[in-house]
């Protein structure tokens, strides 16, 4: 059971494997919940009901035949709609890909299916994962599961809202600058970004290739660990995917934090709203109370992360999105020659935020400005990595806020892109460094909406990160100050 009493993914899979529940009944319940709740939430762009039923029946057939359908047997999963699914629309919430059905599955999708999981649908996102609120979707925004006037965060807001509303126990998103962790924090669920290279990016529609990682959403730390173990591990189809076994994330959950050196990162606390920083301080106190060695630490280089990120990520995006040219797939707007056709297609197909990022990236890479912007941002990236290396000589993990505020109102930040970009300030450093980080729900803000505490760890130290995350989850439960049920509805 998870903290709110719903079935955990692990419990559902156990029940299905033992034949106590059919995968079909689990999937029907999820589809029923989506039909009832999603018209308001708009977490899903596509519900693959027929395929989900067929996949569930196949799992049940395996159980009847005495075969093991896998560790996620019959568990409904929602996929961010930038993960390729063979024969199922994959739009990236962009007009330019409307109606496209990929001819192949992403590696994570293959691994989910091999583990017995059932894909129930594709979830809403900021167009091409560019945004922090899911408002940049060409299909309209997703609403926060606890307050429909607020955003769920983003860019993986659809998956976060679907898991947060209890429509599915598990979801996948992608995290380029915080797009899994930030919506997880806002929606009161667990979300994590693995070390760069731990999960294959094959079949993830590319945004910024040196930053992108696929990560899990779940309602408990244990379920997030289970999902990571299923999707991680070497894949020859992604040359940046590390040739090493998947992290044994489940193993460390019950270890506790005694003697562990925890740094409370000043830069991830100072610039956050008072009700958010209060929760981070409580988390630090509680960790100290259970035997961790907690100290404050400053990593001033983190303050350069936002600017470096908003040069590097758009630069890579401008290159990656050059492929949308109206030739091989997706939208084409007819014109007399190829150059005009390219321009007409891209002008009609991309929304304003995607155009902003493409232009920003093209500018940062253009002749005369390359050294001043992209070149310097890459050097600052080195400075940040060195700063982390230095801090991790003294600390085993760092903690801080995941997002500067709780969920904000729909429309509040759309007029000013820079204000929206600041929503990612706490999550960006881990993408630039390639390190793992996880957001764990820890109490609520003054508005009654969830607050997430982030745990950052050195590269490939997922097991230690999950160890601390699981402890935080227990400590949050012990404080018994639920994010739901009190305050607003």
């Amino acid at each position, binding site marked *: 059971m998870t903290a709110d009493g719903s079935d955990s993914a692990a419990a559902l899979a156990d029940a299905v494997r033992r034949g106590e529940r059919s995968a079909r009944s689990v999937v029907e319940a999820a589809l029923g919940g989506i039909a009832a709740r999603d018209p308001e939430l708009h977490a899903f762009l596509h519900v693959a009901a027929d395929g989900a039923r067929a996949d569930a029946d196949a799992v049940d057939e395996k159980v009847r035949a005495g075969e093991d359908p896998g560790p996620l047997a019959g568990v409904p999963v929602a996929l961010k709609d930038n993960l390729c699914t063979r024969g199922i629309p994959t739009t990236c919430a962009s007009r330019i890909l409307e109606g496209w059905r990929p001819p192949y599955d992403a590696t994570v999708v293959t691994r989910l299916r091999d583990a017995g999981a059932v894909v129930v649908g594709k979830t809403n996102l900021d167009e091409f994962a560019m945004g922090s609120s899911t408002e940049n979707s060409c299909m309209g925004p997703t609403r926060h599961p606890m307050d429909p006037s607020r955003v769920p965060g983003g860019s993986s807001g659809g998956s976060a809202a679907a898991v947060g509303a209890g429509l599915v126990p598990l979801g996948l998103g992608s995290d380029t600058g915080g797009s899994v962790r930030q919506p997880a924090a806002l929606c009161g669920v667990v979300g994590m970004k693995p070390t*760069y290279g731990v999960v294959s990016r094959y079949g993830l529609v590319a945004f910024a290739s040196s930053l992108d990682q696929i990560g899990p959403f779940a309602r408990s730390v244990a379920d997030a660990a289970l999902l990571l173990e299923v999707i991680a591990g070497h894949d020859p189809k992604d040359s940046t995917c590390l040739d090493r076994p998947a992290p044994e994330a489940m193993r460390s959950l019950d270890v506790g934090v005694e003697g562990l050196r925890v740094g409370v990162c000043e830069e991830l606390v100072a610039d956050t709203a008072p009700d958010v920083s209060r929760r981070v301080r409580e988390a630090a106190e509680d960790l100290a109370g259970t035997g961790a060695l907690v100290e404050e630490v400053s990593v001033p280089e983190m303050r350069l992360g936002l600017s470096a990120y908003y040069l590097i990520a758009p630069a890579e995006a401008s290159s990656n999105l050059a492929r949308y040219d109206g030739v091989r797939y997706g939208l084409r707007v007819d014109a007399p020659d190829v150059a005009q056709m390219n321009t007409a297609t891209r002008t009609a197909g991309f929304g304003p935020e995607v155009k902003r990022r493409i232009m920003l990236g093209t500018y940062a890479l253009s002749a005369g400005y390359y050294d001043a912007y992209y070149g310097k941002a890459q050097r600052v990236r080195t400075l940040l990595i060195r700063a982390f290396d230095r801090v991790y000589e003294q600390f085993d993990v760092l903690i801080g806020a995941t997002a500067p505020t709780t969920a904000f109102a729909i429309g509040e930040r759309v007029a000013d892109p820079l204000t929206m970009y600041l929503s990612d300030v706490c999550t960006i450093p881990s993408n630039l460094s390639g390190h793992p980080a996880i957001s764990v729900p820890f109490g609520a803000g003054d508005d009654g909406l969830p607050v997430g505490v982030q745990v950052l760890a050195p590269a490939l130290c997922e097991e230690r990160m999950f160890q601390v995350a699981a402890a935080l989850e227990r400590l949050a439960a012990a404080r018994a100050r639920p994010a739901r049920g009190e305050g607003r509805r």
Partner: protein
Amino acid sequence: MSEPPALGRDDVAHVAGLARLSLSEEELDTFTGQLARVIDHARDVSSLDVHDVPPTAHPLPVRNVLRTDDPCPGLDRGEVLAAAPDVEDGRFKVPRIVGEAP
């Protein structure tokens, strides 16, 4: 190194052309204001002296990743072409390529 100049309307028009995007006059004004704010914020990076720090293009120290050259089936050609806006004789079809210089 001297600091780069502020981003202006001509810069936005120039990069839009490079990126094959067409902007209305109104869009050009809006985007110029928004992008100039972001570039201005980036002065904390662009004003730093970091010439002695090597750049990081990628978080992993991996080099020359190769896999064994085993033949395996590719994507189905019919399935791939079925997703294209226009095809002819098993190929992608596009409008005129050669013509007046742009």
